[in-house]
């Protein structure tokens, strides 16, 4: 599945999108930690289909995934 990266997270990853394999949110988190340096130390949230989720829901692979650093609008 494709994962969109933004802001500081994209800067740390050096890219603004990644392709990973994951069938649950936990697998996704693990895959992202492998690919993005220091992700554990960076405040971030994961959006699935444009909603931030915190659970370990299954993923079909067709979702729109994004990794979001803290917001700075306004």
């Amino acid at each position, binding site marked *: 599945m494709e994962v969109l990266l933004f802001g500081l997270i994209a800067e740390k990853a050096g890219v603004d999108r990644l392709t990973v394999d994951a069938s649950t949110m936990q697998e996704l988190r693990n895959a992202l930690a492998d690919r993005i340096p220091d992700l554990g130390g960076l405040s971030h949230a994961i959006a699935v289909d444009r909603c931030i989720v915190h659970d370990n829901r299954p993923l079909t692979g067709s979702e729109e995934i994004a990794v979001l*650093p803290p917001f700075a609008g306004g």
Partner: protein
Amino acid sequence: MSSEKTHKVKDIFVEGSIDPAFIATSITKHATRTDIGAHEIFLGQVRSDIIDGSNVVAIEYTAYRDMALERMTAIREGAFAQWPSMTCLHVHHSLGNVQAGELCFMVFASAPHRVAAREAVAWVVDRIKAELPIFGREVLSDATHVWKTNA
């Protein structure tokens, strides 16, 4: 302007800073709506904070556009649900480079009476800052940068 009350997804993003002349034009357009008695406008301006001895000279804004516009649509619906007398609500946010001293954000509500416009603007501004995936890279005078975070 009554079409403002429909809840289709509207684009709030503008490239670069928000021109005060655009705000004046927006105000002027409400003159035909003579049921309006009060306008409340919030404007965000890029502040030249000092960070580790360097000044912020600009912010470069990026956004997760699709999610930001979906969240904005929900916030707009929430505002009209809570303040049904509100006549219209206009929101604009910059993307790209905005220099210190320039405007990056506008929330503009109109209503027959002032309390609805005032409360709606405060609520919408706070919700946008908390919920919209907008990111700001503060460019410093020493050519380094830091990432802005809404506390």
